[in-house]
């Protein structure tokens, strides 16, 4: 056996245990708890997405805020250079709103102030998040992925009515 200084040996043992703990954490979180990077809930053809009859994003813009049941809404938002459709959404206070956002051209972003809704919007993929609005007021949403010269005009409002 080669001579190993006890302090050095303890250090080797300590770091090995630390590595094993982290390795286990990675394995358990990915396989046991199923942690994943946010995956698209649905894939679709960005060329056809805005075509009437092909998808809910092809419906008239005033029909894209849908009341599933009292106080339960889903909103189909189409992001394109350089606006959101619809750009104004109205729901009553206490509503649970599911945002389904997709892009028909380039990469966009969707961030809703005052909530944890913050998504990357890619053409061909659907970004989906749900938020509940217990306080009346105006919530602004913006595109926060640079998408061209008109990027700064890409915003809208969610109005929660009392």
């Amino acid at each position, binding site marked *: 056996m080669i001579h190993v200084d006890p302090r050095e040996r303890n250090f080797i043992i300590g770091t090995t245990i630390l590595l094993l703990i982290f*390795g*286990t954490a990675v*394995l358990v979180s990915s*396989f*046991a708890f199923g942690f994943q990077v946010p995956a698209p809930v649905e894939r679709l053809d960005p060329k056809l997405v805005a075509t009437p009859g092909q998808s809910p994003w092809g419906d008239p813009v005033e029909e894209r805020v849908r*009341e*599933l*049941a*009292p106080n*339960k809404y889903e909103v189909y938002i189409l992001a394109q250079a350089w606006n959101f459709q619809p750009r104004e959404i109205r729901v009553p206070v206490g509503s649970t709103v599911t945002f389904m956002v997709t892009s028909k051209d380039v990469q966009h972003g969707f961030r809703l102030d005052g909530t944890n809704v913050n998504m990357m919007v890619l053409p061909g993929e659907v970004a989906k998040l749900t938020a509940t609005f217990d306080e009346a007021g105006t919530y602004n949403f913006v595109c926060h992925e640079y998408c061209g010269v008109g990027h700064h005009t890409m915003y809208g409002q969610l109005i929660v009515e009392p």
Partner: protein
Amino acid sequence: MAATVTKAGTPYKSSGMLIWRLFFGLFGLMAAGVIWFSTARPITVLPRITLAPGFYLSDQNGERFTSEDLRGQIVLYNFTYTNCTDPCVATSQVMAEVQSRLLTVDASVPLKLVTFSIDPDRDDAAQMAAYSTELGADGSVWHWATGGAKQLKSVIGGGFGVFYDVREDGRFKLDPAFFLVDGSGVIRAEYRTEEPDIDIIMRDFGLLAAEVDHSEGIYRFAYEAAHLFSCYPR
């Protein structure tokens, strides 16, 4: 190694080594087992998506029909109305096709189909019975049900998350959708399209039936492990 064991004073040291070897050996085995289970996926299960809504409706015979009547049975849900001329016609055809293939699934629990009518004003029991007979529905397998507009909205819109709305001409805008619900009333698969792959629906019926058959003893833990490791069909 054998020589060192015989020396005085060394056994303590070598048993310390043994503990470390056991520790690393067991750890390696566990890691290998986890990686094998989640990559080779010996068991496939359907995800437990969310709880299906409870309901209290009446069926095509005018009798009470509730979610409790379907406990312990594997049920495929679908939504339509008898005046439909849009995608919901196609979804009813899918249901009919699934009904004709249900006997090919090896199951120890009843497999059922349920269609809700979203148009309670026009679809009374007689109307639903006539429409379902036209589709070749077997009344003991394929149930039709409807109820008050308010309850339907909360069950279908709120519970299943399927949007529908009446239009000015009396027709409905309805998103096509199918839901597979297990015996505990948990949604295990959803197919939000008017033309789902029927082979996949039959496969999913089979997966749920297999899970019921393996719900006891050691198998139960293996199936729970499959849920834990997200062994879902690809």
